[in-house]
């Protein structure tokens, strides 16, 4: 009898798991269940594409016909109601039940909505899936001003897109500096400077007290009394793993669904992958982490006797927005044992050199290298970040 695999969640982790399962077991029954009404799509594109050109059907991570051709049953718009690990059965909110031999739990993460008064007003948006962007785009048709709460990569990229639509933007970041986990003080300050130079206002170390307005949001107030008018308020304040169904099923959960290094949860027949897991260290919430974990979980579901270890690896921060590139990798905290070397140089177009295309990089590039025990352990580049290749090679190969 063919094995039955159930993948819960049709993000990149779920898709990658389903793909890998099919690859490893050509005969099995594979069912991929997703809550969104779209087929799996390339979520990161939502903050990188000209809003005018953004179309759901053009962002798919696999052709519509691929599912049928691969014998994968894709159920869209279906929410998971309950998982019964003993009965090896998953029930959807519409009542349908699906038995399984192995299940991959990849329900992803939801946007974290901080308890700011006024957050339920119209015009306050979180950004996660195509539905959110549908709402955002519609608002952008008439909006003049936007406030983005949370200055991470996605927030900055979104602000850049909104600026191109002619919408004035203000980014508010609670931490004392932008992207505090990946950038040191000096780098973060430079980043803020260049964002401001790109006509996007940016404030760090601020505490949001209220979203003002009546039924429609009209602006954002800070604890220190400042107020920023806005037609749109975007909350990009991080995500929280979707652990509800896992908890109710009795699986071990902390900040996410806890797995071992082979991505198996506390139930031997349920694996987990993607933004919802807690595997060793913190979950960076990155596309690639989700993709590789999904692929690994899929493989391990088919080969429980000979599983692969999920290699988390180092995922660099990379962003191309606000007329520059930004790259950060590794350990970027100055300390007694970590020294730095900083360089700055002008970005010039050399008359005697040929390029097919040139990225926007601004007038100057800034590079900060971090060394521990004489070895490179981290770096930040702002401007022309083509040096990233050399840095990554050095980090991997040493010397």
């Amino acid at each position, binding site marked *: 009898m063919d094995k039955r695999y159930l993948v819960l969640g049709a993000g990149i982790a779920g898709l990658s798991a389903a793909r890998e399962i099919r690859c490893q077991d050509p005969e099995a029954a594979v069912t991929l269940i997703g809550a969104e009404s779209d087929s799996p799509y390339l979520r990161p594109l939502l903050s990188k594409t000209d809003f005018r050109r953004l179309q759901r059907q053009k962002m798919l991570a696999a052709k519509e016909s691929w599912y049928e051709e691969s014998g994968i049953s894709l159920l869209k718009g279906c929410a998971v109601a309950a998982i019964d690990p003993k009965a090896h059965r998953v029930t959807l909110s519409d009542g349908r039940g699906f038995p399984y031999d192995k299940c991959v739990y990849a329900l992803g993460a939801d946007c974290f909505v901080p308890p700011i008064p006024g957050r339920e007003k119209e015009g306050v948006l979180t950004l996660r899936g195509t539905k959110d962007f549908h709402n955002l785009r519609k608002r952008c048709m008439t909006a003049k001003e936007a406030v983005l709460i949370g200055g991470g990569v996605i927030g900055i990229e979104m602000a850049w897109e909104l600026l191109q639509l002619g919408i004035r933007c203000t980014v508010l970041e609670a931490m004392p500096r932008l992207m505090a986990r990946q950038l040191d003080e000096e780098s973060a300050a430079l980043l803020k400077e260049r964002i401001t130079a790109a006509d996007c206002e940016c404030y760090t170390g601020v505490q949001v007290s209220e979203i003002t307005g009546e039924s429609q949001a009209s602006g954002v107030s800070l604890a220190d009394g400042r107020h920023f008018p806005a037609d749109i308020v975007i909350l990009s304040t991080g995500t929280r793993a979707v652990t509800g169904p896992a908890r109710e099923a009795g699986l071990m959960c902390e900040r996410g669904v806890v797995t071992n290094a082979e991505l198996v949860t506390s139930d031997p027949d349920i694996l987990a992958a993607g933004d919802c897991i807690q595997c060793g260290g913190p979950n960076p919430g990155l596309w690639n982490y989700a993709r590789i974990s999904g692929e690994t979980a899929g493989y391990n579901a088919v080969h429980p006797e000979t599983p692969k270890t999920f290699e988390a690896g180092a995922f660099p921060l990379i962003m191309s927005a606000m007329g520059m590139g930004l790259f950060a990798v590794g350990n970027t905290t100055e300390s007694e044992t970590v020294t730095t070397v900083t360089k700055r140089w002008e970005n010039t177009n050399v008359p005697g*050199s040929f390029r097919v295309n040139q990225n926007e990089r601004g007038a100057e590039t800034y590079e900060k290298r971090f060394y521990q025990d004489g070895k490179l352990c981290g770096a930040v580049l702002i401007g022309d970040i083509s040096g990233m290749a050399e840095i990554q090679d050095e980090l991997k190969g040493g010397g």
Partner: protein
Amino acid sequence: MATYGFVYDQTRCIGCNACQMACKDGHDLEAGLFFRRTQTLEYTDDQGRLTIMHYSGSCNHCQDAPCVKHCPTGAMHRQEDETVAVDPEKCIGCGTCTWVCPYGAPKVSHKTGRSMKCDACLDRRKEGREPLCVEACLTHCLRLVDLDTLTEEEKQLYTNTLPILPSPEKTHPNLLILAKEASRG
């Protein structure tokens, strides 16, 4: 297993931009995004001599392509004939390839949100056609060839770099240029 690459006879290139425009039109590219670019460069070389030359360049489908190496999602991949292409179902527009390529071949399209570059028109070639640029060239100076079919003698005539290009030691481009002695004005 073939290894396709462009063979460019720079001695006959007239800098007319027909290849650039044919590619642009055939792929319906937005302003500011090029798969192939033609430029006439004028500069003083490191020996102080005035140097003027036409150059038409695109992706060089390098043997050690940094775009493939550094692509986090595997979207940038080698096709069956060793040319390099982006899989639009995998690319998330992170821009890594656009920064690590010393030739500036890929660029993230604002239209699609993804990296785009010359893919040596594989779909056309499967139908028995040539790449758009090859068919457009007014002096027939551009070819896409299986470099494995060239003899060592033939390859001796060509170079895979020019002073206006980055060092080939970085990426080992699959590119053969019949170099023109530059005009000195």
